[in-house]
């Protein structure tokens, strides 16, 4: 009894071991990671006993395989699950990202189609006079992002045909803010930005479909993708509580809406 008491006192005197702290480990999409990191921060602000988060990138595929191999609790992914993905994984989506095609506000081109887009990328369309609906006649100044940027990944996968020989020479920027500011300041520019950065720019239709919240949520606009977390089976424990908060809380929706379209529990 005495020894047990001494052991108890000794245990109380020592700080809790680091391993006792609950941690949610996630790996995967580097496009989704900043959003998950922000959500984790605000989750911690609202929940006194929130767990620690351990987030690393690696890409969607790394998130899927790490989750399957139990290296992490969940995988951050920025696309829907595909039939050839590892089996037994469950996706909990919480946001939709959309990449809109933009021009300067003084160059309100109504829209472009797939063929025209390939012509732009292949360098066959070089002047605005070749683009129907443009009031301009000068040289087109295209803008893109450095490889690896989330919007660039979406753009390459949706708007660029595999057979297109890329020959245009775009200006390359790091962030959506830089692209937005450049297109705003350059009447002959066109580029693409996440939907939240369209303000002050003209948004072009693609294949006749406008880039709006409704067309993105409804699936009519092609350049959109979901952000979500995959788990082995249904989410459990701390991760399930976090995901429930992400999909139901007003604060989480507000955080998501700064850049993306929130998806609620019902999937909308």
């Amino acid at each position: 009894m005495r020894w047990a008491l001494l052991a108890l006192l000794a245990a109380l005197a020592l700080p809790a071991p680091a391993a006792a702290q609950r941690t949610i480990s996630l790996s995967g999409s580097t496009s989704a990671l900043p959003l998950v990191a922000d959500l984790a921060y605000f989750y911690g602000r609202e929940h006194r006993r929130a767990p620690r988060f351990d987030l690393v990138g690696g890409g969607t595929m790394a998130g899927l395989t790490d989750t399957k191999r139990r290296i992490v609790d969940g995988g951050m992914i920025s696309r829907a699950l595909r039939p050839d993905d590892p089996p037994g994984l469950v996706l909990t989506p919480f946001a939709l990202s959309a990449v809109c095609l933009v021009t300067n506000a003084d160059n309100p081109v109504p829209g472009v189609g797939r063929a025209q887009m390939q012509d732009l990328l292949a360098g066959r369309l070089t002047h605005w006079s070749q683009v129907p609906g443009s009031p301009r006649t000068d040289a087109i100044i295209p803008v893109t992002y450095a490889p690896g940027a989330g919007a660039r990944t979406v753009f390459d996968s949706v708007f660029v045909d595999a057979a297109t020989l890329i020959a245009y020479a775009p200006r390359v920027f790091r962030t959506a803010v830089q692209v937005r500011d450049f297109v705003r300041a350059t009447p002959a520019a066109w580029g693409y930005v996440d939907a939240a950065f369209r303000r002050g720019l003209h948004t072009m239709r693609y294949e006749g479909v406008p880039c709006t919240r409704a067309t993105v949520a409804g699936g009519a606009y092609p350049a959109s993708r979901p952000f979500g977390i995959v788990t082995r089976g249904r989410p459990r424990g701390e991760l399930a509580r976090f995901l429930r908060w992400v999909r139901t809380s007003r604060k989480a929706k507000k955080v998501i809406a700064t850049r993306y379209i929130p998806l609620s529990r019902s999937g909308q």
Partner: protein
Amino acid sequence: MVKVTVPLLVFCLLGAGTAQAQVRLAAPEDCLTNPNCAPGLERVYGGGPPPDQLVKLEVADAGIQALDAGRAEVAVAFSSDPELSRPDVLPLRDDRRMIGSDHVVPVIRSSVARRYGRRLTRRINAASQLLSTLTLRSLNQQVIDGRLPEAVGGEFIDANGLGGEARRRPGPRIDIGYQDFAENETLAHLYAEAIRAAGYRVRVHAVGGLRREAVRAFRRGRIDLWPDYAGSLRQFLNGRAAAPRGARLLRRAQAQNRNVFAIKTETSRRLGIRTLSDLVRRWNARIARAAAEPLQDDQWAISEGSVLDLPGAWALTQGAGAVVAVVDSGTRLEHPDLAPNIWTNFREVPGNGVDDDANGYVDDVHGVDLTSTGAAQNLNDGHGHGTHVAGIIAAAQNSRGVVGVAPRAKIMTVRVLDSAGRGTTGAVAEGIRYAAANGARIINASLQGDDPDAAVNAAIEAAGAANALVVVSAGNSARDIDRQPSYPAAIPAPNLIGVAATAPDDGRDLDSYSNYGRISVGLAAPGGQILSTTNDGGFGYKSGTSMAAPMVAGVAALMVSVNPSLSAADLRAKLLQHAGRAQLPVAAGYVDAQASVRSVTTAVPYRSTQRLRLRILNATRKGKRTQVQLSVSGASAALKRYRLKLGKRTFSVKARHSTFTVILRGTGRRVRVDALDRSGRRLGSASRAVKKLRKGKTGVKRGKGIGA
């Protein structure tokens, strides 16, 4: 195996004459009127950019991109731009001190400062004290990566010990404004969180423009506090005052956001421009190309057409400072292409038969021999596999033979395979632990076995705790290891990466013998017909996933060299993320050296933004000395020193980062470590029982069989 004779040394010096070179300056439009730009150059250095050499930047903070795009040779950038931390970008030295200082400074309404007194201002000053220019770059990088300034600023305060909750203080709300750019917004939220955590009510909002609007909002009573820049503010006030009437400057941060003239290091070398004086004065330069290695043309994997894309990575780093352990059959240490890059344990006296550094191993000067239980270390490579692997990773760029992927990295030899290429998983496990405990950040294990061993899994986990990435070969049985595992490649761990082999000439197809697996094998890399160093002192070809793994290990060494603060899990994630996508049956694709290395030049890992984590990996005593190995991760802007308590004695150690070892005079049953900030506040702590040092080589005869 084909032997290759070393041809005569050939130097390649092209165009070694003088050539007219233009030096274009990319600058924002205000350069022509900004005293820290063209007028300053004219006044202080006696010349400015000719009009035809001035390239206008439409986006003020896109100067470095103009250099990348080849639109200019020199660009005006801001000192808090994270791109200035890239190893291929150099700020020109302002040798005549033209550019004024521009420190971050919080400006507060005097009446608010008086009302809340020193408790408030001390809080704000404590936040300013955490801010260096490098810290500011890190905060900016997180926003560039897509995070919200509010979360970045708030998290920084939390992570550095100024966050938390306090009892609400009575009094009116403090309104904090920010100017219309991300850095200023982050700073506003950072100060807001520091104040809120002390119990004050705060609100943060935009003031709708730049400095003029901030000052106007202050004068109209809309804001009480805003982050500004001391030099620019004084300039805005025409030098008549440091702050607008009714306002006062609090403590300036060390962080600055001032003009910098940036140049690519290669351009700097080529044009001979290192200072602003050079920029104004010199326009001619010699153009030369670096000398190549005699056999470099026979190394298909590192040629410009290979998927590895090494030449681009070498423009950023050659691996200096990284230690790579080769867990293999030993190394021919005196090989002329390896000798310059052999790791040395300087705490060990060679040949004295004593374990001088108290790590459990006698005379482990260049590594350890785990093929026998004898005290001596025989690192000689009787098989040849280890020497070949070592050369792929770090053969020196010394105009002799071949060049490794990371030609300035150091090779630590961990011999676990005998001259027949056979060993035990027990020796491998001990070798991995040895490598991680003695400073290797990358551990290459080009080994294959069919049996799992929990000791190897535990060793890989321990290596992860010490921040070491383990790179392993997928195996050479031409099978899917998702279905029929091969070890250690099939071990699931966040610090382990398995590598499949691709074939010449461009490395895009899997070689016929290579194992694969869409889940278990992360990457593919050139492995067929690889020319490297041999154990007879020459050079020769070998094929296998054993040759592919060291390609990845070398790339990882380049990444560590550029950004030593990356964790092993982050390194692995970056390698996977930036792999060239392919239809190969592996998880990510081909390793891409250039993209992987570039990705870490300004990377801010999530873990480094979180609260400090302290772990004691090992605490051992030998005689009257205690050796403690510590691992530190997380935010460290506030970290000043460590306090170690051992028995009744207390020791103080200056702040250090990542993984390091301290030796204490004295012994005790338990050691406790506290990480402290400037004021002695505890940021993190850990404790561990001290154990008696065990002699090494206990695992040599244990476990299952494993081979090259």
